[in-house]
């Protein structure tokens, strides 16, 4: 018998099915239907903005990250998610800068994949919101042919673009806050309303997120906790006074679906314990309703999740699992 050189590795010698790149690329894959649908809703501008944000993120990762993190797909997720939260008429250079900021200051500066405190896509969006408040809250109308740009997408870098180049349309939450006009639930569910590129179709987000939850690539507890809390709190308020929007409207409008399913479930920036995930989701839910109703902004999912991101280490510590054979009830011991 030949005596080959054998491999020596530490146990276990079998490997489970999940791997970090597979998880990351699966998330990317599950986002693609949303990108396609948003292109259908908002025209070619949608895919251009998403592409610009993704390019900004991936180029930054390639330029400053290690090579390994480029192929693991996490940079592409940040870019895609950021792109989906932007208005379709945003100048492309802003989207690009946002993607670069998300990876550079949202992730790499903390030490790269796994070390960031805040969701990089949301941090980038918060940055864009602060830097370009006008373009970030100008929502292009969905009318027009597929080839019509939704706004001055090709504005020169450092230029705001021509605001007269677009026809605008208010988001359901904007309508409610500033004009006290409601939106029917049907369009909210299927996505034929104004808003950010990828946030409008609750149905599609639930389907794609459901696939990830089924594969265990996202933990269902976080979104379920957010939905339950938002529904409960807004239902309570609606019951007290009908001037407040009902729970279904709260669930289906704005960035709640996209945020709850794709942002709040980001493994790196959400709790690791299941009890922690319930608490995290409840915190996000309460903040969302609070800011939407009493805050100055019509939408608040971004800040709610970012605020809760900051609390994750404390939530993890507070919900440390009970170690087997400790703190037993008297009857057990």
């Amino acid at each position, binding site marked *: 018998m*030949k005596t080959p050189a054998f491999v020596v*590795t530490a146990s276990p*010698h*079998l*490997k*489970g099915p999940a791997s970090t790149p597979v998880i990351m690329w699966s998330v990317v894959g599950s986002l693609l239907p949303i990108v396609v649908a948003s292109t259908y809703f908002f025209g070619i501008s949608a895919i251009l903005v998403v592409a610009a944000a993704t390019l900004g993120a991936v180029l930054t990762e390639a330029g400053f990250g290690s090579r*390994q993190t480029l192929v693991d797909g996490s940079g592409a997720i940040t870019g895609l998610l950021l792109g989906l939260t932007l208005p379709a008429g945003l100048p492309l250079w802003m989207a690009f800068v946002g993607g670069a900021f998300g990876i550079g200051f949202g992730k790499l500066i903390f030490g790269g994949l796994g070390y960031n405190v805040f969701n990089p896509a949301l941090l980038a969006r918060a940055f864009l919101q602060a830097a370009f408040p006008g373009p970030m809250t100008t929502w292009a109308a969905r009318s027009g042919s597929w080839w019509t740009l939704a706004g001055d997408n090709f504005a020169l870098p450092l230029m705001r673009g021509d605001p007269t180049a677009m026809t605008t349309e208010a988001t359901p939450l904007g309508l409610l806050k500033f004009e006290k006009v409601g939106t029917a639930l049907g369009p909210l569910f299927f996505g034929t309303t104004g808003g950010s590129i990828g946030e409008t179709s609750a149905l599609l987000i639930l389907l794609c997120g459901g696939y990830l939850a089924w594969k265990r690539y996202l933990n269902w507890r976080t979104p379920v906790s957010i939905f339950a809390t938002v529904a409960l709190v807004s239902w309570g308020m609606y019951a007290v006074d009908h001037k407040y929007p009902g729970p279904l409207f709260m669930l289906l409008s704005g960035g709640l679906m996209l945020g709850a399913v794709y942002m709040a479930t980001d493994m790196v920036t959400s709790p690791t314990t299941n009890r922690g995930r319930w608490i995290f989701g409840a915190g996000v839910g309460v903040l969302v309703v609070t800011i939407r109703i009493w805050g100055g902004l019509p939408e608040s999912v971004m800040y709610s999740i970012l605020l809760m991101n900051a609390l994750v280490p404390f939530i993890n510590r507070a919900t440390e699992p009970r*170690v087997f054979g400790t703190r037993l009830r008297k009857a*057990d011991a």
Partner: protein
Amino acid sequence: MIRGFEFLHGVHPPTRKELTEKLPIHRMPFPEEVVLPVRQHAGKPAKIVVRPGDRVERGDVLAVADGFISAPVHASAAGTVVAIEQWPHPDGSTALAVRIAVARFSAQVPRPRMVPDWHNLSPEQVVKAVQDAGVVGLGGAAFPTHVKLSPPKDQKVSLVLINGAECEPYLTTDHRSMVEYPQRVHLGIRIMLHALGVTRAVIGVEKNKPDAIEALRAKAPSDLDVTVLPLTVKYPQGAEKMLIRSILGIEVPSGKLPLSVGVVVQNVGSAATIGEVFETGLPLVERIVTVTGHGLRRPANLIVPVGTKLGDLLDCCGGLTDDAAEIVFGGPMMGLPVADLNTPILKGTTGVVVLTKSEVRRQASYPCIHCGYCLDACPVFLDPQHLGSLALAGRHDDMEPRHLADCVLCGSCSYVCPSNIPLSQLFQASKAALRKKTASAA
């Protein structure tokens, strides 16, 4: 279908038992040489009592137990002691070992001996007989069996749990023993109950071995209070504390032994061996080994003389395939990698698994992404990702209050980790570092 008895968390690796689960146990021919290390059990190594040149018969004592937590080592084949020297050990180090050139054309018949009649022996005499036969736990850890049969006098024992879970993938030694030697298992249980002064025993068997459950139930003597329970197929079902949680629904307190809840756990293979010792009088000189894996030409369940060299065993199974890449002693979840074909099979070697190139776990490691999979896998509810980051930072002192000691090193966390972080390896190293520190402080 009845829901099996189960513990919380755990993982579901592919079982791959179909390679050998239907193959009857065969006896392998005696090799030309056997090598018997004195360190084959937990506790103190045995003391050698033979010298090079000595002629030994099969079953003769080569080394005697050194103290109570130790076990003797017996010649597994008739022949001549050719050397006593350091020899490769499955744990990767070397150990003092007795090399025996096996007599050619020997019938390998042991010396005529008295078969102890356990009915007339006191519990202490039974324990002594078990120790003298060199019986150790055959489930892998090789803890001397007689120690578990002699609990402190003030400790009340109410139940003997027989571990037939065999949750490690690939392995079918216990499975085949239960199917082929159920009466021997019951005899061993009877003797253990006698030694412990207990009346009740429960055998836990994973549900994927219905023929074993069937055989044990069919052959259960009517005057023996033994129950066979089907367990959920889940790793690490066979870990002592998990088994107790599954069957009794109670948790053994952290840092305590199963004895603290009045339970003694024994491997089903050990039970069968005790039965055999009191049937034949022959000490533990051979064991059943599953030799398997896709890197092996003819997988088999074999009765192997203790001390058989790995190379001889593989030859007996048709040799390796061209893409064989790694050889594991024990199951693939907790087993030890062995690269030297001279390494001997020990009393605690449950199986030899040959993995192919494509099965070997050798991918890149990624940073922890805090997915929490390991928390959902850990059967003792630790926070492996946090412990892992502490281990990587060398902060062993901070790991102690986070219950590192409760880690059973089952490898479930490493198995599920998508970033391929060698968590259980880190914990093993951290445990060793802490032990060293405690030892030097004392």
